[in-house]
């Protein structure tokens, strides 16, 4: 059962864009643009849905939750080549220095990027009067991710493009009484 949510779609898109802009420009010297916004609800996707990305491309998913007046979780699904490029830029390394098999370092870098993105998102919520605290980031790897419906007041999926590479932010939130 969906509740009325106090943050509008426009505000939520602005929050998502700002958090990406802030982290990408500061840490990666890059920018990203919103290509698609998907409104997910239990009725429209009762059977689950594919991520709006190439199902065969290997991906890495970073996730951080937040708890407080607003409780939620944000997933960032990133194509692996973009994740590798971001890691190289963050750590000032070449791909050959990291190595395709060094999952730990790439996982850590994407975890930290997710932490920063969700942190910026959460800080903006804080400025709107919603105090919450963050959880520690976790990481998943895989391909052909499918999104299941969840019982939350609000869920939006934002697909971004960064120099021809895609990533997706999946935001799930509910207001705590």
């Amino acid at each position, binding site marked *: 059962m969906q509740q009325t949510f106090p943050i509008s779609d426009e505000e939520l898109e602005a929050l998502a864009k700002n958090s990406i802009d*802030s*982290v990408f420009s*500061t*840490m990666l010297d890059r920018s990203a643009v919103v290509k698609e916004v998907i409104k997910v609800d239990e009725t429209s996707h009762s059977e689950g849905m594919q991520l709006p990305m190439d199902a065969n491309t290997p991906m890495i998913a970073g996730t951080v939750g937040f708890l407080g007046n607003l409780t939620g979780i944000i997933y960032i699904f990133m194509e692996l080549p973009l994740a590798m490029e971001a*890691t190289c830029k*963050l*750590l*000032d390394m070449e791909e050959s220095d990291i190595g395709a098999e060094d999952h*730990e*370092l790439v996982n*850590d*870098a994407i*975890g*930290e990027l997710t*932490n*920063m993105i*969700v*942190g*910026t998102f*959460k*800080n903006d919520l*804080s400025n709107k009067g919603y*105090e*919450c*605290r*963050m*959880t*520690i980031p976790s990481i998943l790897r895989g391909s052909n991710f499918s999104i299941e419906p969840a019982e939350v007041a609000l869920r939006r999926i934002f697909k971004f493009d960064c120099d021809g590479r895609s990533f997706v932010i999946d935001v799930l939130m509910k207001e705590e009484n």
Partner: protein
Amino acid sequence: MRLKILTVDDSKTVRIIVKKSFKGFDCEITEAQNGVEGLAMAAKVNPDIILLDITMPVMDGVEMLTKLKSDPTLKSIPVIMLTAEAGRENVMKIAKIGVRDYIVKPFKEDVLVDKVSRVVDLRPAGEAAPVQKKIDDPIDILVVDDKPAIISQITEGFSHTPWNVKGVSSTGEAIDFCQKKLPDCIIISLSLAEDAAITLFRIIRSNAKTKYVPLFGLSVKTAVEEQARAQQAGFSTIIHKPIDFEELEAKIGKAVNLDASGKYFQMGEGYMTVKLPKSCNAAVVNEISTYLKVKTSEAVNAGIAKIIFDAQNVASLNMDVIKLLLHSMKTCRDLSLRYALTGNDVVIEESKKFEESKDWKFCDSLETAKASI
């Protein structure tokens, strides 16, 4: 002594970024992955500053900070929080426990360096044990002036030296230059529009890399007001236009701590020659006096036992020079060194007018002086 920085963060990425940020500075970075490791590492290495994350497993940053501040041996270590969480509640909580500053992720590396440099004395790598440059070594002088004629004049004025003069016309160009190459000295025109000289002074002084670079203000002597503003802002040296290059060279040499002894002292063939310059004012005499003891010791250690005081270029003899020579000759006698004086006609004539020097015997050339001792 190397500055010790402890970075406490569960993210290896952040710890690598911290290390990368301070690569150009004289510091030693130690790492910890959580509050428990952080406290142990703080006790072990006694860092000069701690960069602390908030959200960590095992023990978070707030708990570590609380424990640190309640430990009498660790509580004085300054802490900067480096965190993705900037909620008002969090800020208030950690401010009460006592942090020196607060950096919200995402952050630029230079912001991190800047904040740390405001709390501890952060010096560029290699500065801890500097190799003193000599007066005839190349140094880089940045001139910030919107008048190309002044830049040309300064370039020309130092053309007899190996010093490299780079002229720029704006604050932005000056900052860009400093980011690429750290100059040894910066000369800023105080008449730049919109108080740009003062703004640039503050930017340079607040940046960890450039904060120790000597800054000279350049002004027309009569522009009293702009000079007063510059002095109030913190400019310690102001050079007047038209520029006296002899004076400017000496001031830069002193500010950059150049070893100027090579201008006056030469050694070879069993002799040390103390060559007095044409203009032997009080500042020059003082500079020579500063080096005299060290250079005489160097000569003795090198097996040199003969010294020539060469006053052939001196334009006019004065009491400062006479006192210098009296003192030098006494040092030679105390150390059983043999010495001789050379001088031109003016010097010889003027020496007769002073009681202290009326009996001095001058040779008319270095060869004669060498032959006489």
